[in-house]
């Protein structure tokens, strides 16, 4: 495009010498008390410089690192040329939700981890560029509603409106099928809506993506719980659907199983985040759903969910927000950026600390302390991580009034419970044929967290797209 000033073409040497472009952010101590998004994103100039650093490797490793095989080199070259529209089109060939994935994917262990420049210096900021393009497209009004094929007369029901369900819905609508998405909650989006907080993923972006899917003709029905309001059998036999995609996510919170977990002031991360993100508790009393007054809040766990909860705790007024984690910093499963942001905002990390008991005030029932034990790292376990072992006699108490349990989720059992011929694993995940994404039940496919256990947005989205292709095939030939 001619209206943008492009920097002169760089030689490989210059490319290596150009630093990774920083992204401006809200000041840590300011943002720790508000719900606005933390980073501001690249401007056009920064995006072009950053994309120009790409060496255009003959065998692009970054693509191997991407779970959905985004054509990253072509995407980057369009940005370097200033042709953002072409970059957006390239991305959308494989990734429907760049503005979201750019914000929440663990790039440091995927595409950016494989980037050749990263071997010597800092990798290309692929995630930030993905975010830039997604935002550019939305904000410039360039978003095109993908064209849909002529109606096929076939109908598919999708259960769950998280990234897996939405991606599948969009693909199937594009193929001309009638698509209805059923969602148990009052708003669509799955974890993007109720789990990941506003300061990391603004809900306006989720709204825009969902609107696009609706513009493609997809009908989203909230407040309908499949298994209760309707069963899968009824969808297939009575409501006239030809196929069903189960994308119900991993929405059953694990608790620690230690004494005191029912005390007042103890939340699952799901409840804590849902009250705040979905029900608007941070705007109480404008919104009716309350959250207790936080003083000292301890989040137990070390993944993205734990970081989100601990950072949210600060934003709803906790004086101190702690993370309690059994292993050391190296083992934290969260995205590096989230850990970094949490540290900057003043979240206190207690590593090698194992929770033993939640202690409540006997008279009121309110949580008053967490009893912990120090751990040290022993021999590596089956996962290759050094196993934490308790240090004798190291028990101590942390005074607090809020505990948030963020140690993971199991698959939600509502669908398996009400669909007897749907096979699940011992851990409750729906079993599928990896090749075709078919479940044990005719006409029913599954993907996302309900199959994988708690995984990632990009994998869920990828599953949704792949499932759509297999559903198309099934609808075309009717063979099972």
């Amino acid at each position, binding site marked *: 495009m001619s209206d943008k000033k492009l920097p002169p073409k760089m030689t490989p040497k210059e490319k290596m010498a150009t630093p990774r472009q920083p992204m401006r952010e809200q000041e840590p101590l300011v943002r720790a008390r508000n719900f606005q998004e933390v980073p501001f994103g690249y401007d056009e100039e920064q995006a072009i410089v950053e994309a120009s650093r790409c060496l255009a490797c003959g065998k692009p490793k970054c693509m191997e690192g991407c779970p959905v095989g985004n054509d990253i080199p072509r995407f980057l070259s369009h940005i370097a040329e200033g042709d953002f529209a072409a970059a957006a089109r390239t991305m959308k060939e494989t990734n429907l939700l760049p503005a979201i994935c750019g914000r929440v994917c663990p790039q440091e262990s995927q595409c950016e981890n494989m980037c050749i420049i990263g071997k010597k210096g800092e990798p290309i900021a692929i995630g930030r560029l993905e975010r830039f393009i997604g935002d550019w497209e939305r904000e410039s009004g360039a978003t095109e509603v993908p064209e849909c094929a002529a109606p096929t007369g076939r109908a598919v029901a999708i259960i769950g409106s998280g990234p897996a369900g939405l991606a599948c819905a969009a693909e199937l609508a594009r193929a001309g099928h009638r698509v209805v998405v059923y969602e*148990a909650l009052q708003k669509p989006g799955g974890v993007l809506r109720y789990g990941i907080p506003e300061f990391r993923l603004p809900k306006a972006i989720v709204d825009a993506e969902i609107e696009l899917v609706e513009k493609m003709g997809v009908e989203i029905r909230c407040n309908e719980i499949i298994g209760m309001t309707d069963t899968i059998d009824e969808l297939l036999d009575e409501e006239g659907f030809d196929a069903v995609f189960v994308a119900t996510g991993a*929405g059953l*919170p694990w608790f620690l199983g230690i004494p005191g977990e029912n005390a007042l002031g103890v939340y699952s991360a799901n409840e804590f985040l849902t009250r705040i993100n979905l*029900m608007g508790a941070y705007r109480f009393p404008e919104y009716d759903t309350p959250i207790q007054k936080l003083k000292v809040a301890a989040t137990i766990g070390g993944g993205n969910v734990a970081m989100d909860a601990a950072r949210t705790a600060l934003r709803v007024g906790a004086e101190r927000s702690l993370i309690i984690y059994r292993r050391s910093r190296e083992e934290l499963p969260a995205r590096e950026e989230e850990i970094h942001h949490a540290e900057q905002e003043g979240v206190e990390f207690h590593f090698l600390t194992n929770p033993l008991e939640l202690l409540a005030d006997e008279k009121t029932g309110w949580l008053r302390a967490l009893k912990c034990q120090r751990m040290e790292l022993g021999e590596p376990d089956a996962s290759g991580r050094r196993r934490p072992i308790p240090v004798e006699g190291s028990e101590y108490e942390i005074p607090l009034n809020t505990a948030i349990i963020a140690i993971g989720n199991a698959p939600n059992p509502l669908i398996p419970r009400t669909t007897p011929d749907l096979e699940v694993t011992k851990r409750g995940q729906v079993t599928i044929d990896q090749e075709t994404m078919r479940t044990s039940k005719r006409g029913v496919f599954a993907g996302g967290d309900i199959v994988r256990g708690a995984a990632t947005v990009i994998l869920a989205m990828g599953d949704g797209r792949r499932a759509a292709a297999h559903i198309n095939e099934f609808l075309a030939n009717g063979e099972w």
Partner: protein
Amino acid sequence: MPRILKIEVLAPKVRRYVVEAPKIARKRKAGQFVLVCATPTGERIPLTISNADPEAGTINLIVQEVGKTTIEMAALKEGDELTDVVGPLGQPTHIAKVGRVVCVGGGIGIAPLFPIIDAMKQAGNDVTVVLGARNEELLILEDEVRALGVELVICTDDGSKGRKGFVTDVLKEMIAQGPPINEVVTIGPAIMMKFVCEVTRPHAISTLVSLNPIMVDGTGMCGGCRVQVGNEAKFACVDGPEFDGHLVDFDLLMRRQQMYKQQEREALERYEADHTCHLEGV
């Protein structure tokens, strides 16, 4: 959005809403509930389906004004819409022919008990019903229960209707006099259910209770509704709401129900302040 077709005042601050919800009306079974959000910025609250008409596609909800949400509901009129109604949720009551069944209801708990009385009777049980209320005015559904053709004993705290005393007094006498009771089903305030369970425990009479903890999603996703049943924490929305009363930790339930008492009071005060202002402005 689900429309309210009819509102009836059953007692002071207690109303029956007939709500359009065709799918739920067809599906629901005794013991199940819905989550209702009355306004777009509202809280989701669980309400038991007290009755339904599958042909008309309506469900009945009986609601007592206790907090901001229910007071807001009380301000709605026939023809108004609720923001959302989701369900039916929870496990249906296990209905079987067991012999002699005593159903004990207290206060607003009589509403969710009603469909269970009906189903127990239809299953061929010999059903006796004990209903308790603070006073005559607060007693609901007397005629409806009587119309089911079951034996009915009423008691009030002040003696203004039926016997003066508590439901537990009546139950104790029934146990003493016989014939033997095979099952007790009780729904009412947690404290009442707790004492009913204490009455039946020494006699090892199986006692079913229906719990009403605070809920958020109703799908097992948040665990906010967890209750302690024996050695296990159960999620009332998907595992319940009915449990073996002899295993339930009622003291914990009562505490957890009070968790947001302070915030609820604040919300209510603000709401009332706003409303008085409006009225004064008229």
